[in-house]
């Protein structure tokens, strides 16, 4: 009953290898998430706000709201 010799498994440096894998992965994941957020959420949002306020007339907005009747102090 002779079994064929198995390859010797990795005996040393297991924690180091695990740590390296996870440190590199954590770097990549966090930088990727940050980049995705910046270019997917933050940049478009700033653009939308800039476009909204470029030609914004606050008095016209106030008049519209007053005519609609939402104010108590200005009818």
């Amino acid at each position, binding site marked *: *009953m002779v079994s064929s010799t198995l390859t010797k498994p990795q005996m040393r440096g297991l924690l180091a290898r695990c740590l390296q894998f996870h440190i590199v992965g954590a770097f990549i994941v966090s930088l990727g998430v940050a980049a995705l957020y910046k270019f997917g959420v933050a940049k478009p*949002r700033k653009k*939308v*706000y800039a476009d*909204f306020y470029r030609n914004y007339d606050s008095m016209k907005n106030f008049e519209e709201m007053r005519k*609609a*009747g939402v104010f108590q102090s200005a009818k």
Partner: protein
Amino acid sequence: MLSRAAWSVVLRRGGLGTRGKHSLEDSGKTWTRKMPPYTNYHAQRSYPMPDEPFCTELNAEQRALKEKEKGSWTQLSHAEKVALYRLQFHETFAEMNRRSNEWKTVMGCVFFFFGFTGLLIWWQRVYMFPEKPITLTDEWRAKQLQRILDMKANPVQGLASRWDYEKKQWKK
């Protein structure tokens, strides 16, 4: 009480059929073992070396093997080493860590009880729930939405930004 009678029958027979007996490859002998919870043996992946060996009642041949184990281990044949392992442990690591189909049963029962709860709540909605408060009726909610749009709530990216004030409809 039915299960207690069945349990005592099982104990007297010394095990559940073939699971209670385990034969060596070359000697064809069987040994008896106590069923849980009468042993102290419980091995799991996180606690693989229990305090007691798996077989505590040894016949003469096994006692002789245990005596031989006290000597030099190079004198033991491969079959004897396997026999000693099987005396000490119920399953190998590969056997202990084998997959099972239990998750299908679990998920099936979970979904079944989700459905049952849904039926219960549906029945309660038909027969037990009181009238809706006035603020949840459709007329009130329409007036509420009109007031929110008049106040131009969230005009940049939110609700009022989706409303077309010239055409008085939602933006396409």
